[in-house]
């Protein structure tokens, strides 16, 4: 099936099997390696992407469902000021270890900050709840995100 959508601000069209998941489309057809495969069951959050600015597990979405939607991955945000602020805070606060979960956390955080300038700690924890990290114990991720509250 032919599907057209906006990927990182560019209009794209792909011809996919109706069963293909968005995760596979992004990784295999578009080579976007920030979108990680961790569980393929909507449990771990490493495949998080933004669909119309909302964080979504791309393993739980069929590519045909995103017809006409706007998909964003970290590759599409490299020149965005809010994104830069978030990644600098992650790097400087030491919120990164193995890094496999990191792009997912960053997109989730980005989506939160787009709608809230000064999220409370509870807002941050609630937002991050769907992204698993096994290395850092989350604390420095939360510290990074509280440090950029304007």
């Amino acid at each position: 099936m032919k599907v057209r959508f906006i990927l990182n601000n560019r209009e794209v069209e792909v011809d996919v099997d109706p069963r293909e998941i968005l995760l596979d489309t992004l990784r295999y057809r578009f080579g976007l390696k920030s979108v990680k495969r961790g569980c393929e069951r909507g449990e771990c959050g490493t495949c998080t992407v933004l669909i119309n600015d909302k964080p979504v597990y791309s393993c739980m979405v069929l590519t045909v469902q995103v017809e006409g939607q706007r998909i964003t991955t970290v590759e599409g945000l490299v020149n965005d000021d809010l994104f830069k602020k978030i990644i600098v805070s992650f790097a400087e606060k030491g919120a990164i270890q193995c890094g496999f979960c990191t792009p997912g956390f960053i997109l989730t955080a980005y989506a939160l900050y787009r709608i809230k300038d000064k999220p409370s700690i509870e807002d941050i924890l609630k937002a991050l709840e769907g992204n698993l990290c096994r290395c850092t114990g989350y604390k420095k991720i939360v510290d990074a995100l509280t440090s950029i509250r304007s």
Partner: protein
Amino acid sequence: MSKPDYVEIIEEIFHKYREKKTRDFKYIGKKIVRWDAIDKVLGEPIFTADLLKYIKNPVFVYSVRTEYAHAKIKSIDVSNAEKYPGVLNVLTAKDIPGVNDVGYVIPDQPLIADRKVRYIGDTIALIIAESYENAVDASDYVSVDYEPLEVILDPLKIVEWNGLEEKPHTLIHDERGSDVLSRYKIRVGDPKKVFNEAPVIVENEYRTPMQEHAYLEPEAAIALPEPGDAVTIYAKTQCPFDTRKAVAQVLGLPFNKVRVIAPALGGGFGGAEDVGNEVAAKAALAALITKRPAVVLFTREESFIGHSKRHSMIARYKHAASRDGRLLGIEAEIILDTGAYASLGPFVGWRAIVHSTGPYRVENAWIDLAVVYTNKVYAGAFRGFGNPQVTFAVERQMDLLAEELGMDPVEFRLKNILRNGDRTVHGQLLDHGVGLEEAIKKAVEASGWFEKRRRYNLEKDVYRRGIGIAVFYHGNSIGAEGADYSSASIIIQRDGSIILRSGVTDMGQGSIQSLINILAETLGVPPSYIRVEPADTSTVPDSGPTVASRVTVMTGNAVLVAAYKLRNRLNKLAAEMLGCEPEDIVIEAPNVYCRDDPENSITWQELVEQSFWKGIPLQEFGYYRAPPAEWDEETGRGSPYFTYTFGAIVSEVEVDLETGVTRVLEAVTVYDIGRVVNLIGAELHAIGGYIQGMGYALMEDLYYDDQGRVYNTNLSTYHIPTAKDIPKEIKAYFVEAGYYHGPYGAKGLGEPSIVGIAPSIANAIAHALGGKVNRDINKIPLTPDTLYMIIKKHNLIK
């Protein structure tokens, strides 16, 4: 015999900087952004599976796994699978050109099961196909004729208490003639006499679960065929040199035809030790047979049953003490369940027995430990490596004893802990930095221990708070397990940039940043000058395995030795160029000058360029061999590890009596790591280790049905902590007691950071629920249902 030069260099540096405070260093112990942070936040293709992006025309390899936990294989028929569309080959055990074995310590684990299967997860055939989907679909057409055997899941069906003798049963490893993998013992003093006369004795049984690493990156390997029957493999492996050995053996090739490269790892925690060998061997086999790139990717469910776990433990402990609170003796029997294969079980068992009395002065001990096979998923290396299990039991015992004696748990511990000049239970003299007392005092002060301990005793609310402490020690590196060496090479390029090569991998733990900090500090260059090459068996020196908290101390020493030699050569040349003594040269790249004359400087690049002209070599190889370790198999006496990391953890919890749900409110961790080399990394271990340990204490376990099938093979049924589970505060402090054989005095922290967590939480829960519950808090995970049963049993809620 004179000391090797590398030992002298490490000691010289230690003594030279012994009094220098960590805050006065330029890079050591500073908050430095890790070398790979930007690649990781931008999602650069740095993990094994990402490299598929650069591979053309690959084949996919899928492991067909058995549905029986214990059965003889009568015959296998793969002919229908071979005819399935897209299938290129179906391999069984007979197709392996070399030795069909990937056992890590002993050869007990076939890559592809041949004679029998021993757990639900054993590979019985490999399907090589044009697509992953083709391979998975074709697996339905592999038919196997089995003769089912008795499934044994309980280690107490293999051995029995009071001597841990083996019971009659259907042998899982009939080829070995026994299902006891290994036995260890400690025989010190006269425990029988002590227990006959002791005024205070406490005894209890303890159980700890099989823990899953749950690293977020599932296993992956990509193999490329090379001319001359050679092969290059990118694989998720912690130990590329061990992986090379395993692959070479399976393929029947010499080491120099097998090249293993370890890209970034999305977590390891010990789990990527032996499964790395397995996925690499499967991919390599397919690449050599098809002459095409071959890809192995595990799903999450495969990862759960396809890699090793933390050994579960059942132990019976008996402690004797005097009325005034002196520990007199310990008797214990400890059983570790290694599942279907040995993996690193023999070494895990050894580390467990070494640490089985805790960091205390113990003069009488009689301890037996057996590692036994069952038909569960195999158990191997996991952060802590046998120590979290025994420390859980020991630290619960210490709280029971304190209660029995009417003493505060902190006071009781302080009366018995190891200090400088003491001997361990093995008779090892601790002649250097033992920072345990300082760690305990810091943890007590930072947590408000005494006040809270008193206040929480009086609580009557349905939410009960409690505060608990646990202390521990943890031997650094591999000790008497094997050859304990490391090495690194440093090459200063002609433009002044630097390449650092070693065989150690980064699985997220971050110890490579320690190497960078040591190198930067010693040479006097900013960390940004240094590029770290990935571990590649063809281009880096063998640094030994990336395990056992050994990178900072062992590879750190190798880096320090090489950097020291380079620095001496550079100082000499700079002295000639600037006109002062070599020891007065200051390198603060890009500036190089004499201490007394900072105005008159040359640049780092000029110094490097001049070295090329003057024929001064700017590459150096550093090697370090650990001080020898000793272990007497009959008595458990010796010096098992060359040094120990010490720690004290205080946890504060709140238990909801109506639901059994526990929340950790606050925690304080204090670790004596000799010297903080990598501050962010150390803090990350303190916090990340805490949260992983909290999962171990409260939520993580694998559940089996009676046929040996794991129920919870994904992350919605196997629960690990989320952001919403973390305590409000985790305070991380460090004690720097200094170790004279470590780089600038440093010791390891990766593994130690999980060891004391579960007992500190369990002790806090016992405190919250009150004295009469104490003995029943003897098993983890303390899930809500487990705790609720205990709460009901003691009528804590009507």
